[in-house]
Structure formats: structure tokens, C-alpha cells
């Protein structure tokens, strides 16, 4: 039922260079043992950093997420 995507989706606040994208692709390939094309999407809501999505797997190193973590520690 869940969607099988056939690409590595990288969202970032600023457009990434093809060098950077290749580097990420290699890392993802090594980690997840998949060989998929890379798509770069712009998302200014992230403020900075980037996120990667491959099917259900995700990696979030965006600035928004960091701020959220800090928000949580402050509320505790």
C-alpha cells in the first residue's frame, strides 16, 4: 500500500551543487544499498541544512529541526 518512490529526494534551503549531490548520493547508496537517481528540491522553510528521503527512510539535518529540539529542551 505504501508508496515505493524510485528516487532519493534531497530537500535543501539553497540549491546544492552537483558535487554535493553526488557526495550525498554515494553516502546514501553505501548506507541503504540502493541505487536511485537524486532529485534536489528547494524548501526555504528549512532555513538551512537539508533533508534526505528514500521511501520510509529519512535523514533530517535541517535548521528548523534543530530549533525544534531546542524548543523542546526549553519547554521541559
Amino acid at each position, binding site marked *: *500500500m505504501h508508496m515505493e518512490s524510485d528516487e532519493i529526494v534531497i530537500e535543501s534551503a539553497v540549491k546544492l551543487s552537483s558535487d554535493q549531490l553526488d557526495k550525498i548520493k554515494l553516502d546514501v547508496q553505501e548506507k541503504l544499498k540502493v541505487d536511485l537517481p537524486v532529485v534536489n528540491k528547494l524548501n526555504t522553510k528549512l532555513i538551512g541544512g537539508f533533508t534526505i528521503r528514500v521511501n*520510509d527512510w529519512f535523514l533530517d539535518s535541517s535548521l528548523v529541526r*534543530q530549533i525544534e529540539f531546542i524548543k523542546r*529542551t526549553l519547554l521541559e
Partner: protein
Amino acid sequence: MLPRKTTEVIAEELINKIKDAKSQIDVGYQGTVLNIADGVAILSGLTNLKYSEMVEFENGKLGVAINLEQEQVGVIILGDYLDIKQGDTAKGTGRLLSIGVSEKLIGRVIDPLGNALDGKGSIKSDKFYPIEKIAPGVVKRSPVNTPVQTGIKAIDAMIPIGRGQRELLIGDRATGKTTVALDTIINQKGQNLICIYVAIGQKASRVAQVIDIFQKFAALEHTIVVAANASDPASLQYLAPYAGASIGEYFMDKGKDVLVVYDDLSKHAWAYRQISLILKRPSGREAYPGDVFYLHSRLLERACKISDKLGGGSLTALPIIETQAGDMSAYIPTNVISITDGQIYFEPDLFFAGIRPAINVGLSVSRVGGSAQIKAMKQVAGKLRLDIAQYRDLAAFAQFATDLDEKTKHQIERGVRIVELLKQNAFVPMPVEEQVVLLFAGTGGYLDQLEVARISQFENKFLDFMRTSHKSLLAKIKKEGKLTDETTEALKKITLEFIKSF
């Protein structure tokens, strides 16, 4: 009042909090909400989720996985589910559903997730205890041998409850089930028994009333209230008793004695039925799912008496079941009756006849409590249960007969007086030594010549007299726990003298 904090102090505290904040990368698997209805979400993805693992939605709301299928998982949402939308993402937290526990919980009112409901601030926890836990095995247990003094004459005398026992309180609505449970909690002041009152699916006003009663009788000092009200989602109502049991286990593992009241498990079964139907699990009798027996058996099995070698703590359970029109043979009542170590049956007819607590002695039993009763009580109340049951039979029969033989008449006369003697108002629990001297007078036949209408007057005056003039005798019975020949003689003399002058 708390000392006022200046803005600088607050700012410094906040800075301290985030000083150690490091950048952390969030990696994992995430699922997508396919469908959400009535507090249950179906997610795709998350194929490596564990049963009972907590799931975090993208807006920070938490859920618990309770249905794992090949392509999707069913998650019950803890709390408000209205701001979760289709297409939202969610991820597993890797943490099984658990509740924060600490000594500081005592005296507090919390929800099943450990959040304070009494407005006294958040509660710091020492440890996390899983909500679902397999009950201790046979080797870890020891037989029940210490009484829970409920302070209710009829129960302590005839249907004694031991520490580590599971005794069901069953009856129609408004027959005094909760009152007996509350009385028991109130009576535990200074008895070294921590009480947990779990309110499941009750009206918020009723829960407020109960808390008020606890405060009035200073019972909140040894009590924790876990509340999932009627307006809370079914998920919280479903989890509430398990949360109560987990808190109880924390104290039990420390070697302490705990009493948990589940008020009531009928509503708990309803909440679980709702969740099961939304999850499309096949329904059986009365539309309950197939595992509704296990739902209660795994909960009540967690009540136990731990052997002395392992700390000797205990967890006593007093589940409450509300029957509809006295139907004890409905699905949930029969299930819980067969799980527990006995039941106390409340009857509306008795209640409205003024016999309160309205306990039907014939239908009530305690399967293990007898060995926990103190000897003095056994001595005075040994045959009480049988006598009362016989009296009820005879009394029903005697309504049709005009003249009875001497023996039957005597039995009826005695029965009427004992029933009168066992009446007790709400929220006036009685210490066990006072119960013993009263029942001594009743079962010893000292009251047979007294008018029935004067029994309650006798009770008050006699206890006053004992408390003032024979304090040492009461203390002796309490200390020795039995009636020696010497005390019996003394008690006989005192009772006879008092009756003469009464």
C-alpha cells in the same frame, strides 16, 4: 509563596538549559497517515515498528502501535487527535509505552501518561516503568497472609481481603461499590499501604467529588489518583488501569504494599471494544473482541504478593464491575468473576431496604482472604457468614408461616440483630479491634434481648464506653491479634455489665 524571580534569573536558567544543546541529526524511518478515525490512525511504512512502541507524529503528538500488519500499522493516539491529518508523517521513537514513576506521585492526580491534572506542576520521575508488563511468575510469589483492613465490619468479618489478593466489587449502579472502595482507602491512614485509585471513563464531576472526599478525610496523603474521564479519548481510558498497575509495581518492587482500585472495568472493556471495532478486529459476544478476557486477566494477574526473599511487597487489586439490572451472567462480569479471587456482590434491594453496605453475603466470597484474617476476628466471626446466609433463607420462609419452633425463631432473632449490627455509614471506617468487640457481643448472643431499633445506639455507646474505660483491652486485642482466655473472660464481663445498665 514562591520567591519572585527576576527576568535576569529566568533568562540565565533558560540559557543554562540550552547551553549544552548540540546539533543532532534526526535519522530513522517514517510513516504516513493513511486514515484517521476516532483516535485510531492507520499508517503506512514503519515496517520495523515494535508492538506497544510509541510513535511520534510530526506535530509532536504521541501514539502507540497496537496493530502490526504487513503493509500498515494501527496506532492509537494518546490525547487529542483532531489536529492530525491524513498525509502527516510519523516516526517510531524506539521506546515502549511507559510511565514515569517516583515517590513524588503520592498525593497527586495524574492522567494515564503521568501528566499532572491537579495543577500542582509537573512531576519529576525517577524511572520509567512499561505500561504492559508480564505478571511475576509462580516462583516469585508467596501466599497471601496479611490482611487489608477495609474498616467495614461486614467485609472484614465475612469476606476478608488479603494483601496481594484480587477482590471484585460487583453490582448495579448506585449500590455503594465505589463507597466501599473509598472507605477502604480512607481506612489505610497509617496502615502502611499506598493506595492508587484509577478512574476509568467516569464523569469529571464524579472524579472531582472523589478527590474532594480524599482531601476531606486526609486520605490523599497516601493515595495517587489516575484519571481518564469520560471525555478523554478511548485510548487513555484503555491505558489507565495498566498505568495504575505500573505505578503500583514500582512501589511493590521497593517492598511496599499497594492497593489499586480500578473503577470500573466495565467502562474499560467498552473503551477497548471501541478501539477494536475501529481497528476492524473481528467481534464476538456482545461485540467485544476475542481477547477481552486476556485484556482483564493480564491486568489482574499483576496483583500479587512477592515472596519475602525478593522484598515482600504486594499489590492488591479491587476491580469494580457495574452490572446491568443485576445480570451477573453477562460477558464481562463472568470473565472478571472467574479471574479474581472472590467477589463482593452489592444488591439494590438490600440498599433500598436500608442495609448498607448492601452486600449480599450469600453470593459474596473471598477465596484466599481467610488466611489473612487476624485470629481474633476469626474467633468472633467464624460462623457469621453461614449464620447470615441461613437467616436470610429462614426469614424468607418465615414470612409464610405463623408459628415457628423455638430454634428457628431464635435463629431469626439473632440474624436480625447481626444484620443490624453490620450496618455501617459511609466514610466511617472502624478499627479492627472495635469490630472484634462489637461482633463478640453480637455473635455471643448478648444482644438477643435488646430491641432491634436500639442496636445502633448500643453500638455507639458501647464503643464510646470501651474507648474511654477499657482502652487497654482494645490495645491488647490489637496488639495480640487474638482473644486469649483471659481477654475473652474480661470482655464477657464488660459486655454483660454494659448491657445490664444500657
